[in-house]
Every structure is written in structure tokens, then in C-alpha cells.
């Protein structure tokens, strides 16, 4: 019986085309992921070569003053792109994965945007997360919207109702057949991705796998519940599509604009204006307040008194430091608001399965705002580390040749913050169970009455 039903389902042309389409877009998403991954690793390798040449050239040009040399030299920090990242590109195409900074004022450098074609960003990627979040539900809807209604409309339901003593079991079997076809498609895509993208089979990958299962189950839950209402095929199709649109188009957009207006960040522009003024006005001021401010921030450098000369690197870097220090209130406020924006969006996403799925995939793949903020924080630490390493050398006018410049290689930031398993799966599980329960109640009540 179930064999026959499966044969029936799979032999339909629409189903074959649908599954094939899903499979092909899934494979396309793997290819796009591969290109993305290669680009990211290529950029990282390029940055390493560039930094080596860049430092060597500048050491050659400015061999006398270490203060002047460090005015020019940029050090790069790379936000590691793990292979699993290519399954959910997230915000990695918006934000640069490489930060290159000199030891001068950080705030003037930290937010440097990447080179981008805005059309690409607007239309978005076809990565695995897109195929899973947008397209899988559509085919789940297409395969299930008429499961019972079609039979009712053609009159075969009555026959089945008379013949079968377990109608609910029949319904479940019909859903199970479709579920298994969809799951197999998912597994094939992920298996190919695993091999092509060299994704390590670790906890991260399993979490992604479980999440993908749950997400598909959620949509089957939606369809199951709607089927339980016992309406016509057209009604079901319209209703299911409306759910899809609400979850994919409307709710995310409404929530996003709410978050943007709830946590506006004028501090971003304020920071940039303030740090410029904070640094530049020091040129025209008496040197003492600048130095006092600097010594107050770094008491350990009090041992380097300000030289007599009109210009000194100690004073110069104290002025640069003042730019950062004068903007520090806005910087902290900006960071706080972005953090709030992020936690709020992760929180609200729990109630919108599609967004939850995207946000969690980004968490697993380290491609969301959480990762970006962590990378920015790490950039600040990296910059501070370089500063503190070079400040005493500059202030004591250490010779450029005393330094082994070849040792300054690009550094990599590896974001290994774990993803909370219950936090990731609970929302999907709750929604799915709720829908299944509602559907079950309806079926129990009505199944023999149709």
C-alpha cells in the first residue's frame, strides 16, 4: 500500500520536476558557496603576501625613523572563513573579512567598508541557506497542499474512507512519503556540499543538519495543520502561500525596520566626526594638555618625557590617541546599541521560524552580526596590542633595524563561540509540535465526516 502510494507520488511529472529543481538549485548553491570560499581564502592569502611586501617596502623607504615608518605600516587581521560559512554566507558579503590598520587612531580605520557592488547585496546570494529557507518550503507546499482535498474533489476520498479503518494513518503515510522525498533531497545536497566544500563533520555541521531537519518538519507541520482544516485545494494553496509570504517577506521586513528605528545609530557618524576633531585640534593647542591626557591613559609611558623639539613622534601619537579617546563615549554607545540590536533580533527571531533559521545558520557559520561585532572587538584588541608593542620603541627612538620586521605576519581571528543547542532548536521544535497537535486534534474530530 505505502509502496504503491510512494510510486504514485514519485511518478508524477510535477513531483519529478520539483525535486529535480530543488536538487539543481541546491547544487548551484554549493557551487556558489565554493566560489565564495575560494574568494575568501584567496583574499586571505593575498593579504598575507601584501603585508609582507608592504612592510619590506616601507622599511626600505623609511629606515631612519621608526615613528615615521609606523605612520605608514598596516597590519592585517583576518576574520577566519570556515568551510561551513559557504553554506550560509550571511553578512559576510557586506562586511569585509579583513581589517588592515596602522597604529594611528583606530576609530578612523575600524569601519572602512569593503569594495562592493550594491546590486549584488540587494538581490542576495543563492547560498544553501536561501535554498533551504525560501525554496524548500515552496516545494513542501506544492507537494502537500492538495493531499486530501484533491481526493475529496475527485470523489476518491469517500471510497478511501469506506475502505480504510485507519484514515488518520493513511494521512500520516501520505505526509511521510513526501517528507522522506524532501529529506533525501536535503541529504543529497548536504552530502555533496560536505565533499565539495571540505566541511568537517563536527558538532557544528550536525547542528546545521538537525536545524535543517527541524525547519523542514516545521513546514510539514504548517501544511499538516492546514490540511486538517478540510478546505479546498485552492483555499489551501492560497493559505499556505500567505503563510510563506508572511514569514519570508513581510514579518522579517517589518521586524527589521522596527529594530532599525528602535536602535538608531547616529553615534556612527558622530564617532567619525569627533575622532577627526579630537585628533586635529591638538595640533593647534598647547602640547601639555594632550600629553597629560596621554599619560593619564597610559601611566606606564610617563617615563618618556616630551622632547624639546617642535615636533616629536611621542606628541604625534599622543594626538592620534586623543582622537580615539575623545570619541570613546560615542564608540561605547555605538557598540552597546549594536549589541542590543543583535540580541533583540535574535530574540524576536525565535517567533519567526524563517528568520530564526537564518539567524541561527549565521551563528553556526559565523557569518552574522554576532560574528561581525566579535571581529570588530578583536580588531580593537589587535590594534591595542600593536600600539602597546610599538609605543615604547617609538618613544625611545629605537632603530628600525633592531626590529625583525618579517615576524609581523597577518593574524587570524577564529570565532569559536559555541551556539546554544536548546536556544537553536527549541523554537522550531515548539512550533512544529504545536502545529502537529492542532492538526491531530482537527483530524481526530473531522476525518470521517468529510
Amino acid at each position, binding site marked *: 500500500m505505502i509502496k504503491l502510494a510512494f510510486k504514485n507520488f514519485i511518478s508524477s511529472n510535477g513531483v519529478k520536476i520539483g525535486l529535480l529543481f530543488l536538487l539543481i538549485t541546491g547544487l548551484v548553491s554549493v557551487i556558489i558557496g565554493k566560489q565564495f570560499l575560494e574568494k575568501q581564502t584567496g583574499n586571505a592569502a593575498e593579504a598575507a603576501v601584501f603585508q609582507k611586501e608592504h612592510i619590506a617596502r616601507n622599511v626600505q623607504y623609511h629606515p631612519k625613523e621608526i615613528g615615521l615608518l609606523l605612520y605608514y605600516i598596516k597590519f592585517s587581521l583576518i576574520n577566519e572563513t570556515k568551510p561551513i560559512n559557504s553554506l550560509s554566507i550571511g553578512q559576510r558579503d557586506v562586511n569585509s573579512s579583513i581589517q588592515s590598520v596602522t597604529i594611528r587612531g583606530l576609530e*578612523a580605520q575600524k569601519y572602512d567598508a569593503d569594495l562592493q557592488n550594491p546590486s549584488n547585496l540587494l538581490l542576495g546570494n543563492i547560498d544553501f541557506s536561501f535554498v533551504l529557507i525560501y525554496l524548500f518550503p515552496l516545494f513542501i507546499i506544492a507537494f502537500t497542499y492538495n493531499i486530501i482535498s484533491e481526493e475529496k474533489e475527485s470523489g476518491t476520498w469517500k471510497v478511501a474512507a469506506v475502505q480504510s479503518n485507519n484514515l488518520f494513518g493513511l494521512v500520516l503515510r501520505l505526509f511521510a512519503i513526501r517528507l522522506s522525498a524532501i529529506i533525501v533531497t536535503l541529504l543529497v545536497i548536504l552530502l555533496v556540499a560536505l565533499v565539495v566544500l571540505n566541511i568537517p563533520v563536527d558538532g557544528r555541521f550536525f547542528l546545521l543538519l538537525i536545524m535543517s531537519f527541524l525547519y523542514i518538519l516545521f513546514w510539514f507541520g504548517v501544511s499538516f495543520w492546514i490540511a486538517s482544516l478540510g478546505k479546498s*485545494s485552492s483555499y489551501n494553496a*492560497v493559505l499556505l502561500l500567505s503563510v510563506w509570504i508572511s514569514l519570508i517577506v513581510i514579518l522579517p521586513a517589518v521586524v*527589521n525596520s522596527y529594530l532599525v528605528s528602535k536602535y538608531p545609530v547616529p553615534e556612527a557618524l558622530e564617532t*567619525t566626526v569627533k575622532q577627526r576633531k579630537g585628533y586635529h585640534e591638538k595640533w593647534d593647542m598647547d602640547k601639555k594638555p594632550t600629553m597629560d591626557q596621554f599619560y593619564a591613559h597610559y601611566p606606564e609611558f610617563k617615563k618618556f618625557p616630551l622632547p624639546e623639539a617642535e615636533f616629536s613622534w611621542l606628541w604625534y601619537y599622543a594626538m592620534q590617541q586623543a582622537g580615539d579617546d575623545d570619541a570613546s563615549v560615542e564608540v561605547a554607545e555605538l557598540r552597546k546599541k549594536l549589541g542590543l540590536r543583535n540580541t533583540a533580533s535574535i530574540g524576536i*527571531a525565535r517567533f519567526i521560524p524563517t528568520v530564526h533559521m537564518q539567524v541561527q545558520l549565521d551563528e553556526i557559520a559565523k557569518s552574522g552580526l554576532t560574528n561581525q561585532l566579535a571581529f570588530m572587538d578583536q580588531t580593537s584588541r589587535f590594534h591595542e596590542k600593536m600600539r602597546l608593542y610599538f609605543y615604547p620603541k617609538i618613544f625611545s627612538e629605537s632603530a628600525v633595524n633592531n626590529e625583525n620586521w618579517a615576524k609581523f605576519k597577518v593574524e587570524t581571528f577564529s570565532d569559536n563561540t559555541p551556539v546554544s543547542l536548546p536556544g537553536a532548536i527549541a523554537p522550531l521544535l515548539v512550533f512544529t509540535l504545536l502545529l502537529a497537535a492542532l492538526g491531530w486534534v482537527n483530524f481526530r474530530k473531522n476525518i470521517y465526516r468529510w
Partner: protein
Amino acid sequence: MIPELLIARHFWNNAFKNKALFILLVFIVFLLSYAAYTGWTSFVDQNEITSGFQNQARQDWLDNPDKHPHRMAHYGHFAFRPKAPLSIFDFGMESFFGNTIFLEAHKQNAVNFSQAGFSTSMLRFGEISIAQILQILLPLLIFFLGFGSIASERENGTLKIILTQGISWKQLLIGKSLGMIQVTMALYLPVMLATILLWSMLQNGSISLDQILRLLLVSLAYFIYLAIFCVIAILISAASKTSKSALVSLIGLWLALTIVLPRASQALGTYIYPAPSKITFQTGIENDILKEGDSHNPNDPHYKNIKDSLLLAHRADSVQQLPFNYSGFIMAEGEKISARIYDQHFEKLLEVYQDQNSFSKTMAFFNPFMAIKNLSMTLSGTDYNAYIDFQRQAEAYRYAMAQKMNELQIKYISNKKPGPSDKPYIIDQKHWQEVPEFQYRPTGISAVLKTEVITFLAFIFWITALICIIQLMSKKLNVN
């Protein structure tokens, strides 16, 4: 009354008997109001913020005391990107554009602080603007309303009756299409009126001809766009055996046109034409500048030539004897070279982007959604070209500012190097106002339209194609 109009009126009356329609309408009107509200507030807030900072940055510039002009060249200026008035209607790519660029000597900085950079992936699901609703949701509403228009008459047998009463297929198709368009207009016209109202309130009384033309064209384009979907709905309904199969085909079509194809075409463009990374881009510029002349290298042939010819012309033995500031002169030369090379590389980069976008643009012939999307953004001033234009104007300003400072240095700064304990040379702060304030001038509509010729052709193509299909189908359609 001619039969087409009778059929149209019948369609109109029937449509408003449908209770589900009212629920959908209320929902869409609610969404539209929300979109209008967010469009309005983000326009007002953003422009208030940017103009506030623009003024502050200008004041900071003017308030600088007497100083060396090259220090001013590094003090620099900011360009803040203002929003276009019609951005309340179509957000376009706004969220992905940077909002601020720092303009200083020797260096072309990135446009920073895009909304997208500070967002979670939630943004990537898309935004709700009035244009977005008209582009995506209205066609779906049209399909929901139109899927049964002829197919259900076929199912319940009324089609046979209509056709035996002497009404031709062509009259039926046209009449139903007109009715569908009329119903759509009942929603579309109030939306456009509201948009016009909001938009005129934003202009502070001085509405330019340019803006009026933009608005008229936008209104016309959306009318055509929606009409295309009305006709498609009727045609597919006419070609389908059952209303259910009409519905499924229409939904499939809608998904392909609005969700899958746009992404696919852009992804294809990006895949075929990979753009260089920032490091490659910058290294390319750096290398070309070094090839042309390295101002740090005392033996560089390019700068040595300049020096020799200057010394010869002024009969001087060393640069210190020249009657003007030599290092200012060299910097002006360096700025000229680096700006030119930057421009060349930037134009090359833009060519790659154009190639990437070419697929989405040509897609307009297969997909009216891409046609309206591109045209609507362009007319609203929220498209790719508006952004590039802002960047070009900012770069032109930066160059003029840097060269002005070099000019002041050449003219007013002594050519003698100050000793280690001498005070640095400075000039009077009155010179700072000689640099005009940065003011972004949006491109006029005629220049804008040139970039969208292909889209206009696509619209014409769609109209002719649908008329031809109506002709063809009216001969081939069957009653059953």
C-alpha cells in the same frame, strides 16, 4: 455599451462580492501605511542627521585656526549622502549604500556606515517599501483575484453560454483584462495619490520639474507593470482547464518572477564576472602610481625631471632657491597622478560591476519584475548609478580641495625648511572659506533615463508581446 466594457463591469461587480478580497485589501492597505510611515520617517531622520553633521563638519573646517595648508588637506572634509525625496516610495539599494565618506589629500577613502553593515541577516529578506508592495505583493493579489476569471466559468459551464451569445474570445479576454485592471486601479490609484501627497509635503513647497517628471514616469511605469500582470492572470486562466491548475501555474510564475529569477540572474553575473578584492584593487593602484613616479625616491626619473626643468627655468642651483614652495608643487603633481590612476582603476572596477549587473538588466525582457525594479529605483534616485554618482562627486570635491591646499602652499608657504625648533609655517584661516561647501547634486532625469533605455525597450516589448498573445490565443482557445 460595447461587450468588452460590459464584461469588465461584470468582473468588477463580482470581485467586490468576494469577502476574502476585503481582508486582503485591508491587510495590504495596512502594510502600505506602514511602508509609507517608515519611508517617511527614515527620510526625515536620515536627512536631518546628515545635514546636521554636514553643517557641523563644515563649521569645524571653517573654525580651524591659522595653520599650514597641508595640515588642512589632511584635516579634510566629510561628504554625507542625502536621501532622494522619492526614497520614501522606493528604498532601492539605500540600505546597502555607505552614508559617509572622509575626504582628504592623497587618499580615496571608502564610503562607510551602511545600514547593512550594522544589521543582522534579517535585512536580507528584503524591506517593505511602497514600491516593494506594488512590485511583489500586488501581482500576487492580482493572480489571486484573476486565477478563476475564465477557468471557473469554464468549470461551471457559463463560458459556453457567454461564447454562444455572440461574444468572441478576443472580446472576452480584453473585457476580463479591463475589469482586472480596473479592480487593481481601485487600490493603485489611492496609493499613488498618498505617495504624491507625502512626497509634495517633503519638498518644502519648491517642487522641481525634474521631480514631477520622475513621479509621473514612476506612476505610469507601475500602471503598465500592474496591467501586464492583470493580462497574464487572465490569459493563464483562459488557458487552464481548471481554476486550481490556473492558480498553481500563476503562483509558480509569480515565485519564479519575483523570487528566483532576480537572484539567479544577479548570481550568474557575479559568478561569471568576479570583482577584484579591495586589496587587489588597492595594490593595483599603488603599483601603477609607483610605476609613474615615486615621490619618496630621490632618484625617481619622473620627479627628477620635474626638478631639473624647474631648476633650469628659474636658474636655481637647488630647490630651496626656487621662488615658490617646492614640496607643495611636488605634492600637487603627486595628487594629479594618483587621482588620475585611481579614477582609471575605479572606472575599470565599475565596468566589472556593470558586467555583473548586465544579466539582471537584460532579464527585464523575460521578467517584468526586473524591469520595474530597475526603473523604479532609478527614478527614485536609490539605484546603483545614483550611488556611483555620489562617489564621483565626492571624489571631484576631494581632488579640488586637496589641490586648493597645495596651491595655497605653493603660493604662501616659504620654501625654506624650518629648523627642528622653529615654529611651523602657517597661513591665515581666512583661506579656509575659499573651499566651497560640498553639495551633492542629484543627476537630472534625462541623464538618468539614458541608463535605463533597455528597461523602456523591455516595457514596450512586453506590451506588444501581450497584445500579440491575446490575438493568437483568441483564435486557438477552446471552450472546454
